[in-house]
């Protein structure tokens, strides 16, 4: 699988080798990503160094576990860091042998690991020693003890018995402190989740988010699939990100099968990803306005979003662009007339939207509601590894389209929108900028689109336990997939990470000091997926 390069002179790896030579068991690399295998006990100190050292400033991008049984009695743990200073990836790994169930938590040093480690505890039964919060995350209290669905000896279609148990919320006590429970079923047409506010008077003192109501066992379902057959499931991780998820999945599998996706297919994938960004951003701008009771803007934006959904339907037969991505390329060809039709439609939408934008920016009471509401500071955003639209509104200058180009983004220059205020208005402005940028990109795609085939065949078959990582900048942020091959083309493990999983904990900080009636507005400005988070 991995091509070991003994002459690797990656500065980050050299720095770590110099500082922690004794802790490093093995140096390796996978398609350009340096991998350091560490002794289990040394993981927290190395992770702390990677996270805090000024020359690295790594944010945790993904943390996943793999159960290697039945072939080997061990669990692997992998920590993927994005090094801010290099805009590059670094992977730390360690393993638990035989009956070892304890690993050292890095959460006290690297905040962003908190949910990942609790998830690993629930799904694999491995215990993060030193984690400050060992409550259940995915498994709700009525799940029986010792149910760890991603362990290989757990059958995917087990019928779960019901048990008794109680989840304890964090309480704030004192005179005049009230708790307001909201959910799982909410007032609007939105997905289920539970929010527990502690308030004294009007301001929110604490919010605790309790999720995973929609846990459907997606990662276990992937393990029942053949590698080339997982696309429909990836498309249904979160429907609003159909293209983002299916693209990330396809890229990982294509890496394993060594498929060189034709350039025209890569352009088409880029086009559809931008269309997906457009319909979601247009909807979000309207929805943010709606939560300030500014219904005019909501109506106009809803109308424009609908135009794009109908455009999607005309182009692909699916309003959500389902069935477009396939392992090896895309399923449909667009004619030159269709391409110019798309650009004409988008030119008209942009003209229309610019008029709405002028109405929005002239409205002082709207601006008043959006400014200084739900501030997520750059520091907290960085600590939590916040990404995507929410990150870029809080000064986190990350966009995979520019930093790790995929599909056809290496042929396009992306203007990344960046704001530092971190309030609802900043998150809306990022979306406004990205709407124009997406339309501009689609115009460029039309002029640059080469002709040629749109599907390619595999050139090899991956060995069991080979794996690949893939990253896509969806409209919400970074979507990561890790696909590991199993026996006879089955998937051994598929780690799915929607940006919502990372950004949800951060919303607990953004609401502090705000009033509960502003929570829907703040929540809408994050607009995170419940389905993509709960899996």
């Amino acid at each position, binding site marked *: 699988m991995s091509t070991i390069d003994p002459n690797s002179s990656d500065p980050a790896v050299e720095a770590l080798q110099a500082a922690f030579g004794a802790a490093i068991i093995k140096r390796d690399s996978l398609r350009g990503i340096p991998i350091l295998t560490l002794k289990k006990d040394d993981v927290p100190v190395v992770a702390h160094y990677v996270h805090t050292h000024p020359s690295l400033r790594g944010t945790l991008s993904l943390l996943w576990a793999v159960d290697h049984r039945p072939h080997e009695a061990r669990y692997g743990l992998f920590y993927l860091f994005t090094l801010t200073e290099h805009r590059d990836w670094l992977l730390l790994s360690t393993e638990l042998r035989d009956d070892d169930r304890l690993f050292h938590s890095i959460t006290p040093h690297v905040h962003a690991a908190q949910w990942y480690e609790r998830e690993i505890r629930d799904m694999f039964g491995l215990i993060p020693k030193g984690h400050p919060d060992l409550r259940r995350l995915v498994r*709700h209290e*009525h*799940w029986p003890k010792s149910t760890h*669905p991603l362990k290989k000896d*757990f*059958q*995917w*279609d*087990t*019928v*779960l018995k019901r048990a008794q148990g109680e989840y304890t919320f964090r309480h704030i006590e004192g005179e005049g402190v009230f708790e307001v429970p909201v959910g*799982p*079923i909410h*007032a*609007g*047409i*939105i*997905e*289920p989740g539970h929010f527990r506010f502690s308030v004294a008077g009007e301001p929110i003192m604490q919010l605790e988010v309790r999720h*995973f*109501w*929609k*846990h*459907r*066992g*997606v990662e*276990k*379902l992937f393990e029942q699939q053949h590698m080339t057959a997982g696309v*429909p*499931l990836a498309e*249904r*991780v*979160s*429907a*609003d990100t159909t293209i983002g998820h299916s693209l990330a999945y396809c890229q990982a599998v294509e890496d394993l099968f060594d498929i060189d996706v034709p350039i025209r297919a890569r352009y088409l994938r880029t086009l559809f990803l931008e269309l997906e960004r457009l319909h979601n951003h247009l909807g979000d701008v309207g929805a943010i306005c709606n939560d300030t009771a500014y219904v*005019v803007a909501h*109506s*106009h934006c*809803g*109308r424009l*979003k*609908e135009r794009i*959904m*109908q455009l999607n*339907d005309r182009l692909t037969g699916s*309003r*959500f662009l*389902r069935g477009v991505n396939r392992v090896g390329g895309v399923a449909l060809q667009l004619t030159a007339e269709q391409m110019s039709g798309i650009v004409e439609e988008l030119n008209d939408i942009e003209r*229309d939207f610019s*008029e*709405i934008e*002028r*109405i929005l920016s*002239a409205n002082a009471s709207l601006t008043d509601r959006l400014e200084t509401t739900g501030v997520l500071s750059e520091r907290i955003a960085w600590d939590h590894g916040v990404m995507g639209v929410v990150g870029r509104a809080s000064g986190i200058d990350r966009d995979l389209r520019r930093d790790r180009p995929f599909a056809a983004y290496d042929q396009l220059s992306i203007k990344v929108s960046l704001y530092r205020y971190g309030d609802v208005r900043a998150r809306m402005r990022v979306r406004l900028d990205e709407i124009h940028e997406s339309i501009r990109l689609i115009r460029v795609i039309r002029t640059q689109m080469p002709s040629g085939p749109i599907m390619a065949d595999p050139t090899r078959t991956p060995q069991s336990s080979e794996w690949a990582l893939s990253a896509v900048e969806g409209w919400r942020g970074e979507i990561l997939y890790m696909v590991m091959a199993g026996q006879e083309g089955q998937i051994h493990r598929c780690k799915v990470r929607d940006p919502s999983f990372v950004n949800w904990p951060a919303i607990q900080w953004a609401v502090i000091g705000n009033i509960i009636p502003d929570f829907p507005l703040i929540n809408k400005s994050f607009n995170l*997926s*419940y*389905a993509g988070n709960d899996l």
Partner: protein
Amino acid sequence: MFRIIKKSLKTRVVTGQYPKTESASRLVSPEAAHKMKPFQHSLTIREVDTGSCNGCEMEMNALTNSVYDVERFGIHIAASPRHADALVVTGPVTVNMERALKDAYKATPDPKMVIALGDCALNCGVYKGSYAVAGPVDRHIPVDVRIPGCPPRPAEIIDALQALRLDENRGPQSLF
């Protein structure tokens, strides 16, 4: 203000500007149509998501935009099951949402309709068999109407809701 009015005048009415679909009357059983009688002119819906991929939610939301505008048919979306005539349930019922669904059903006053929306609500879709899924909606609460699709288009949802209101004596209700 003038800018807003000018924009509205320029935009004109967009309601109804969507491709039409085939009639959905085949989805409606005589029992469901009969049960629907009290809600012929006004139907208030509470949407409950029990584990969908959020596609059905997006299409339900689209029903309220100015293109589909279901309010023109007397269909409203309520904030609480206590105010609802009908529950629209989307998604397979997950192990974690089973109890909440039953609570919402109990909280809905009689007489009530249950509409299972989307393939997952009907037969669990791609999540069928998973340890985390406790079966389709009709395993947990009685279902009156089934609207298939992954997800059904908003126009198809409107057609199904309209087909429900076929009055056996008077033929289809007029839309306006």
